């Protein structure tokens, strides 16, 4: 529940233009855990709470699409114990979100995007269940990128287009940026792409989609990302538009 101060701030911010689509590179869970002498998984659990809070705030502001980078293909290089722990956590939290009614009450449609065939079968089953049960929801979209890198996404799109050229569905001359975009996992362009933890790199995330997005590199660890950070983001977005 929001405090009256938060409600008030949200009402004020809604007087200006609200970004339609926010994307987040949720970086800093392990550093958060290390600072508090917790395990990595504990850091990721706190990161999930931050994600839920971010969703709640975005919904109240009227943001229509929230896109998050949950797990990169590069993250498979991490210790097996951590990767397995992350897969189990993802499965558990998706189940919780679905069963708690949070997704239904807020009419959030969940899309999980990435090389899902690389994920363990128990997680793929949960993903299938959650995406099916939420596909009719219309208030907001939550895109979660798992087992993803942007270059692999573009490569995959090219392969699909080349196959269509081979099949005769389209001709080589008809290949345009729009055709390639149609074959990406998602072509929604974020208004703002945010990376937490102070790192100022895209790390192979949404390279195509975010080429004209406002980038925001924040020096806050993801589990500490809060209502106030989102408000500042929205304010900076409104300021850019105002200028």
């Amino acid at each position, binding site marked *: 529940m929001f405090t009256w101060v938060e409600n008030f701030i949200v009402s004020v911010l809604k007087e200006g233009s609200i970004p339609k689509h926010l994307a987040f590179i949720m970086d800093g869970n392990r550093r958060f855990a290390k600072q508090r002498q917790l395990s990595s998984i504990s850091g990721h659990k706190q990161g999930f709470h931050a994600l839920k809070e971010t969703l709640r705030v975005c919904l109240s502001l009227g943001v229509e699409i929230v896109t998050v980078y949950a797990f990169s293909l*590069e993250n498979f290089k991490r210790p097996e114990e951590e990767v397995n722990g992350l897969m189990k956590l993802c499965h558990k939290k998706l189940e919780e979100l679905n069963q708690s009614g949070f997704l239904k009450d807020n009419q959030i449609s969940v899309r999980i995007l990435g090389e899902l065939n690389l994920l363990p079968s128990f997680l793929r089953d949960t993903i299938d269940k959650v995406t099916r049960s939420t596909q009719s929801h219309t208030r907001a979209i939550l895109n979660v990128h798992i087992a993803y890198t942007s270059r692999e996404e573009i490569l995959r799109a090219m392969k699909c287009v*080349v196959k269509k050229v081979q099949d005769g569905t389209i001709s080589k*001359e008809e290949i345009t940026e729009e055709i390639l975009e149609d074959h990406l996992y998602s072509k929604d362009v974020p208004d703002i792409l945010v990376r937490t933890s102070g*790192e*100022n790199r895209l790390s192979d995330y949404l390279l*195509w989609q975010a*080429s004209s997005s406002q980038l925001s590199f924040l020096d806050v660890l993801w589990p500490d990302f809060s209502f106030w950070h989102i408000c500042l983001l929205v304010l900076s977005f*409104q300021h850019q538009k105002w200028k």
Partner: protein
Amino acid sequence: MKIFSSKMKDGRIKSVGYSLSLFKILHLIILFGFHLISQIFGIFQTFRCFSLLSIENQRIWKDQNERRKKMEGLKRIPTHIGLAIEEEIELEFISNFVSICLSLKIPFISLYDDQGKLKEKRRELERLIHSKASQYSSKPSIPRFHSLKMASKYEREEKKWTNSLGNNNINTSMIILCDRRDGKEDLVNVCKLISDSVLNGQIEEKDITLESIDRNLSTSGIPDMELLMVSGHKMQTNGCLPWQIRLTTINFIGDLKELNESKIYKLLERFSKVEQRFGR
């Protein structure tokens, strides 16, 4: 006051109208306050940069040895540095930036503007850079200039850049001029080249890999940008080589005229301390 205090039959509507006005006013005040703070911060930065600039200009002339030692103290210098210009093209400031990078012997220096005006002004830029080279280095090197252009046929082999003598031993820096067409449009071009090769039977679908895309882009053979400085105030890369900036450290530097040697040194110092985990 009349609106707020008048009694109406549908008084409920009037009170809602009152709330809306208050929030709108508050929103404008907060937005203006935010703008004021950013302007003051910007003026402060400008003032600080101008004062540093005058000091630094003196240091360039009087103390090249000290400057060289300071730069050589950097643990790591990027192999490829980029400058994306989001505002009016001012060749004077761009050539200052390039000259500083040349004095550090950075092998690849990319200059990006989305409209391609830099490619049009290439000759003038070359002349300016040659004239400034000796300001920042006692032994200025003559860089090579290269304007990116899309490949016309599918490449199977990785390109090797050669110097003007045709040797693979590169010992001069390369200045690369690029624009929006070298980004997404180039990727579309690669897709077309690959389609052609598949249709002609030159390659199969399994041969379409990240490396085959790399080989056929206009930047083939050039290492990805490690550090990108973006001028202006839009805080976006504005279409700058999306494929090539996947691991690039991106810094927004504000007005290009404020990018002096001291600021570049600070950004390079920060860059040299970055440890990339590459997913681990």
